[in-house]
C-alpha cells in the first residue's frame, strides 16, 4: 500500500510537472499580435496623427518600422511635408514598450507645401523580424494632401474622458476628425440663425427656470425658496415639472427652457440658472441683430452686462457665465455628430423628468440628418446607396441618442450594453451618406466613456 501510494504521489507529481512545463511553453508560444493602421486612408491638414493599433497590448518592448513612399512630394520641414518622429532612409521607427496598445506618428505640412492637385503618400507596416507581431489587413495607409478628402471608411474611438464623461466630442466623419472640449466650459448657446433663441448646455446639465420678475436687481435668494429641491437632474419627483426648465433633447428651438427671447429688454424675464452646483440669475433679450445678457450671482448686486453677436459660421455663439464668450463647437459645416452626456426627458410615472444620460449622441442641426436601420431588415455589410434612398431621414437631434445601447439595471445591477441589432445612416451637409455602427460601448479595458464606431461611405 505504501508503495502504491508513493507511486501515485510520484506519478501525480510528474503529471503536475508536465502541466507546469506545458503551461510555460504556452506562455512562450503566444501567437504573434497583429499591427494595423487604424484607418486605410486619411486626409492631411496642417498636422495629422496616424495611429498604428495592436490587436492586444504588447508583452515586451519592441519597435514598429514603416516604409514611406512619398510619391511626388518632397520630405523635409522646408519642403512639402515631414514626420515626427523623422523618417530616415524612407523609414520611420516607432518604439513601443510592454503594455502599449498602439503607437502613432504625425505628418506635418512643410513650409514649402504648395500643391496644385491632390497628392498622396503611403506608409506600409513591415513585419517583425522576431515574429512577435505581424501586419494585418490595414497594412498600408494612404495620406491625401488636398481639400477634397472624403473618408470612404473609418474607425473612431470617442475620448469621453472616462467614466464620468467630462468631454464633449465633435466628430467630422468625412475628415475622420474629432474635436474634444470640456463640457463644463460653457453654459449657453446663442442661436445664429434668424430666430432669437438661446439653448442650455444640456451636456453639463444646465437648467433655467423663469421668475415672474423682469428687474434682475430685484431678484434675491428669497425668490428661490424651494428651487433647490426642485431644480435637479435627475428629478425623480415628476410633480415638480422640472422638465420645463431644460431644453428638449430633439433640439427643437420652440421647446427651449428660455423660450422666445424678448425683443425688448424691459419685457425679458429673469431666469434662475443652475449650473454645476452653483446658481445665477440671468436675463437675456434681443439687442438689434445681437443678444444682450445680464447676469449675476444669486445674492449679488454686481450685474454683468454684455452683448453676444451672431456668427453665421457657427450654429451658436457660446457663452460661459465665468468666462464670457467661448469657442466650443467647430464651424457648423465641420462636424456631424456630438458624443457626450446629455439631458433627456425620461418617462417616470407617466410624466417626463429630466435625467442625465451618459453615452448620448446628437446630430449637428445644420443639414445633418440620420435614420436607424435594424440588422434584421438589411445587414450592415449589404446596405448600399439604393437602400439609403428609400430611408426616411430625420433632423431630430436625438435620432441616435442612446438607442445604440441598453439602459443599465442601476447600481449593483447589469451594466448598459451595446445594442448590436442596429446601425445608423447619416447624411452630412455635403450630402455624403455614411452608414455607422457602434462596435464598443466601453474601452477595450472596460472603462466607460470610450466607445468606438466604424463607418463606411455609402454614396457621395
Amino acid at each position, binding site marked *: 500500500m505504501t508503495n502504491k501510494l508513493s507511486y501515485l504521489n510520484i506519478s501525480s507529481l510528474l503529471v503536475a510537472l508536465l502541466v507546469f512545463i506545458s503551461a510555460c511553453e504556452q506562455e512562450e508560444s*503566444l*501567437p504573434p*499580435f*497583429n499591427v*494595423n493602421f*487604424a484607418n486605410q486612408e486619411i486626409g492631411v491638414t496642417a498636422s495629422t496623427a496616424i495611429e498604428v*493599433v495592436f*490587436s*492586444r*497590448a504588447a508583452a515586451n518592448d519592441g519597435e514598429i518600422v514603416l516604409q514611406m513612399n512619398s510619391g511626388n512630394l518632397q520630405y523635409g520641414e522646408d519642403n512639402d511635408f515631414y514626420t515626427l518622429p523623422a523618417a530616415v532612409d524612407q523609414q520611420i521607427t516607432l518604439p513601443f514598450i510592454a*503594455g502599449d496598445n498602439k503607437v502613432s506618428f504625425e505628418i506635418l505640412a512643410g513650409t514649402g507645401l504648395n500643391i496644385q492637385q491632390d497628392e498622396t503618400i503611403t506608409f506600409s507596416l513591415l513585419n517583425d523580424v522576431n515574429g512577435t507581431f505581424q501586419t*494585418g*489587413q*490595414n497594412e498600408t495607409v494612404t495620406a491625401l494632401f488636398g481639400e477634397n478628402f472624403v473618408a470612404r471608411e473609418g*474607425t473612431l474611438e470617442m475620448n469621453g474622458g472616462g*467614466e*464620468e*464623461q467630462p468631454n464633449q466630442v465633435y466628430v467630422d466623419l468625412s475628415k475622420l476628425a474629432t474635436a474634444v472640449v470640456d463640457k463644463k466650459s460653457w453654459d449657453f448657446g446663442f442661436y445664429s440663425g434668424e430666430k432669437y433663441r438661446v439653448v442650455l448646455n444640456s451636456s453639463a*446639465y444646465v437648467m433655467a427656470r423663469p421668475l415672474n420678475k423682469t428687474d434682475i436687481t430685484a431678484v434675491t435668494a428669497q425668490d428661490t425658496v424651494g*428651487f*433647490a*429641491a*426642485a*431644480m*435637479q*437632474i*435627475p428629478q*425623480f*419627483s415628476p*410633480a415638480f415639472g422640472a422638465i420645463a426648465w431644460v431644453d428638449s433633447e430633439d433640439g427643437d428651438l420652440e421647446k427651449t427652457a428660455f423660450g422666445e427671447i424678448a425683443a425688448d429688454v424691459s419685457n425679458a424675464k429673469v431666469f434662475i440658472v*443652475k449650473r454645476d*452646483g452653483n446658481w445665477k440669475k440671468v436675463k437675456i433679450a434681443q439687442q438689434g441683430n445681437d443678444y444682450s445678457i445680464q447676469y449675476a450671482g444669486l445674492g449679488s448686486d454686481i450685474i454683468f452686462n454684455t452683448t453676444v453677436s451672431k456668427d453665421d459660421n457657427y450654429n451658436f455663439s457660446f457663452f460661459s457665465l465665468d468666462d464670457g464668450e467661448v469657442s466650443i463647437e467647430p464651424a457648423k459645416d465641420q462636424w456631424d455628430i456630438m458624443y457626450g*452626456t446629455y439631458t433627456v426627458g*425620461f418617462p*417616470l*410615472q*407617466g*410624466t417626463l423628468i429630466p*435625467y*442625465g444620460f*451618459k453615452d448620448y449622441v446628437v446630430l449637428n442641426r445644420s443639414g445633418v440628418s440620420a435614420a436607424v436601420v435594424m440588422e434584421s431588415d438589411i445587414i450592415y455589410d449589404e446596405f448600399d446607396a439604393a437602400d439609403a434612398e428609400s430611408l426616411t431621414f430625420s433632423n431630430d437631434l436625438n435620432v441616435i441618442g442612446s438607442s445604440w445601447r441598453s*439602459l*443599465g*439595471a*442601476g*447600481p*449593483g*445591477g*447589469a451594466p448598459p*450594453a451595446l445594442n448590436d441589432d442596429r446601425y445608423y445612416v447619416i447624411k452630412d451637409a455635403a450630402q455624403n451618406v455614411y452608414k455607422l455602427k457602434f*462596435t*464598443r460601448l*466601453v*474601452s*477595450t*479595458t*472596460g*472603462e466607460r466613456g470610450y466607445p*468606438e464606431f*466604424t463607418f463606411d461611405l455609402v454614396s457621395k
Partner: protein
Amino acid sequence: MKITFYILFFILAINVQAQTIFLGDIKTKEGIDGAVISLQSLKSNRAINLVTENGKIDLSSDWLPALVSVNHLSYEPLVDTIFSLDQFIYLHPSKSFLNEVVVTGQFSPQSVRNSVYQVRTIDQHRIKSQGATNLQTVLQNELNMRFDRDNALGSSRLNIQGISGQNVKVLIDGIPVVGRSGVANEIDLSQLNINSIEKIEIVEGPMAVMYGADALAGVINVITKKSSGKNLELNVTLHEETIGREYSLFSDGIHNPYLQLGANINDQWYLRVEGGINYNGGWQGDSEGRDKLWHPKSQNIAAGLLSYTSEKFEVFYRSDYLHEVITDLGQEVRLELRDPYALDEKFISSRWMQQLQAEWRLAEKSIINSALSFTNYERISKPFTKNLLTLQEDVSFNNMDTVFYRSLFTRNTFLQKLGQHEMQLGMDATLETAGGTTLSSGAKYLNDLGVFLSAELQIGKVKIRPGIRHTFNSVFETTPTPSINLKYDFSKKLSLRLGYGRGFRAPSIRELYHEFIDTNHNLIGNPNLQPEYSNNFNGDLAFQVTPAWQLNLAGFYNQINNRIAILLPEQADRPWTYTNQDQFKTTGFTIRSELGWKSLTMQTGFAHTGRFQLLSEEHEFLPGFVFSPEINQNMTYSLDQFGLSISSFYKFTGAFQDYRLIENVPQLRQINPFHWLDLTATKSIGNYLDITLGARNLLNITAVDNNMPGGVHSGNQDGSAAIANGRSYFVRLNFNLNLD
C-alpha cells in the same frame, strides 16, 4: 480513483463489524445505547435481557436462532427473528416531534415541548433527503420564508414574516455570521456551508434580549456537529446536479464533492475536519454566447472542530473558511483590428470565522457559558479584460471595488437554577471594523456592548420568561429592549404560548457610511442614523392530537418604527441619504400539522401573511395590509425493508402584492404566484453507501410575471421576476464509514 477508495473502505468496514449484533438508528446509522434486547432462543427456550453498549451486544452463537424484541424509549419497538450473529438491526425514532432538543434562545438545551419560544427545526436528514446544495433550497420550503433573486450577483434576498432579511440574525452555533453584502445588505445564505449542518433552528419574532441587534424578524441558528458515538468516521459525498438541462462532466451543472473525517481521540477529545467544493457552472438559459443568465459560482470550503469534554467542563474550537468566486462572463467582442476579447468580472468573497466556546458547570445549579469569535470577511469585485486568443486576463484599469468586515465577538452568560426557576445574566460585545471603496474613506469602527438579564419562572402550569437587554453602541443611541414570554399547559397535550418582544435593527455600516456619487447619483450614508425598533406580539396554540400528530396554530403582529429609508433632500445641493422615517407592519397566521403514520411522515402547513401598505396612510380607500398565502407539504415515505425512502417537497408561494403609485394613482401590482415541487428517493446499499436521486423544480419554473414598476433602472425590464433555472436532476452518493 474515487472508486478505489470506496472499495478499500468497504473491505475494511466489513471486517470490523463481524461477530456482533449491532443496533443503530435507521437514519444516522449510529449505535443506540441503553436499548433493552430480550432474547428467546428458539432452540433451547432460554431467555435473556441485554442492554446495548456502544450500540452492540455480544452473544455466543448457541443462542441462535432466537426471537428478539428491542425496546428503547426514543425508538419504535421491534420484534424479529435472528439466525446469525453478524447482524445489523436498525430502529426508527419514535415519531413524537416534541422530544427534540433545541438550543436557540434557551438557557440550556431543552425539548421543543418545554421551550417558551416556538422553535422550528430542520435536521440534516431533511437536508440530505432534499439533496440541498445550499441553505436557500431548504428554507424556501418553509412557511413565512421567501426569497427573491438578485441575478446580477447570484444571491438571494430572504424575507421572514414579510420582513426583509437584514432584520434576520444568522448564527452559526449561536455566534453571529459577519459579512453583510450587496444592495440587500444582508447575509448571503448561500455562503454558509450546508455540509456541516447538523440542524437548523428557526425562531420567528424578535430575540433581541439574547441575540441583540438585528434579531428582529427572527433568528436562523445553524448548528454544527460537535460529537460522535463513533471512534472514527469518514464521510464522502459526491453531488452531481443538472442546472435546467445543462450539464457536462466538468463545467456545466453542479459538482459538489465533500469529505468529512471525525475522530474521538480519546474519551475527552474529539476532532473533526472537513472540506470540499461547491461548483455551480451557471445557467445559460435564453442568453446567447458567453454571457450566462446566472453566473458561474465556485466555492471552496473547509472547516475544523476540536472539542474537549469532561464532567464539569466542555470547550470547543471551530473554524470555518469560505472562498467564493462568481464570474460574470462578458460577451465576446470581435473587432477587426483586435484580438477577440471579453470584459469579464469576478466577485471574490472570503470569510474566515473562528470561534471558541466553553461551558463550565460550577455546581449542579450554576453554569457559565463563554464564547469568543473572530471573523474576517472580504469581498472584491474585479473587472478584467480576457483575451480570448491568448486567454490572458488583464486588470488594466483601476476599477476594483473592495469591502472588508472584521468582527471580534464575545458572549458570556451565567445561569443559576433556583429550584424550578432559572435566571440568566449575560453580556456580549462586538468590535467591528469595516472599510472599502464603496464606503466613505477611512476604516469604520462600530463597537457595542450589551448586558442582558432574563429568568424562566415555573409557577404551576405557567412558565414565564421575562427578559431585558441594554446595548451601548459607539455610533448610535439605543433604548432597552424588553421581552416577556409565557407558556401555559392546559394539559400534557395542549399548550398555549404568548409573547411580546421588542427588537431592533442596527443601522448597517453601509447605511452609515455608504458613498455612491456619479452623474445621476449622489447618495451618501448617514452617520447619525438611529436603530429601527420593533414591537412584536406572537402566540401559538400547540395541540398534540396523538403522540405522532402535532397541530399548531400561530399568529403574529410586527410593527417597526424608525424604519431606515432613502430620503430625497429638500435642497438640491444636498445628497440623498438614509434617514429614519417610515413605519412598517406585518401580521399573519400559520397552521401547521406534523404527522407520523406507519412509514409516512407528513408536514403540512398554511400561512397567510399581510404586509403594511404605506400608501394607505394617504389614500383612505386602500387596505392597510395586503395578504399573501403560502401552502407547504413535505412528505417522506420509508420502505425500510428495501432501505428506500421517498420524499416530496411542495410549496405554493402566493402572489407578492403591493400598492404602487402609477401616474399618481395607487394601483395593486404583483409578482405572480408559483408552485414548487421536488421529488427525491434515497436508497441505502449495504451500510456504507446511500444513493439519492432527485428531480428538483419538477414544475419547471424559471421566472414569473412581475408588473411592479421599476425605477429608471428597472430591474425587471422584461416584466418578469427570476425564480429558478428550470427542472433539474441530481444524484448524490454518500459514502459513510464508521469505526467503533
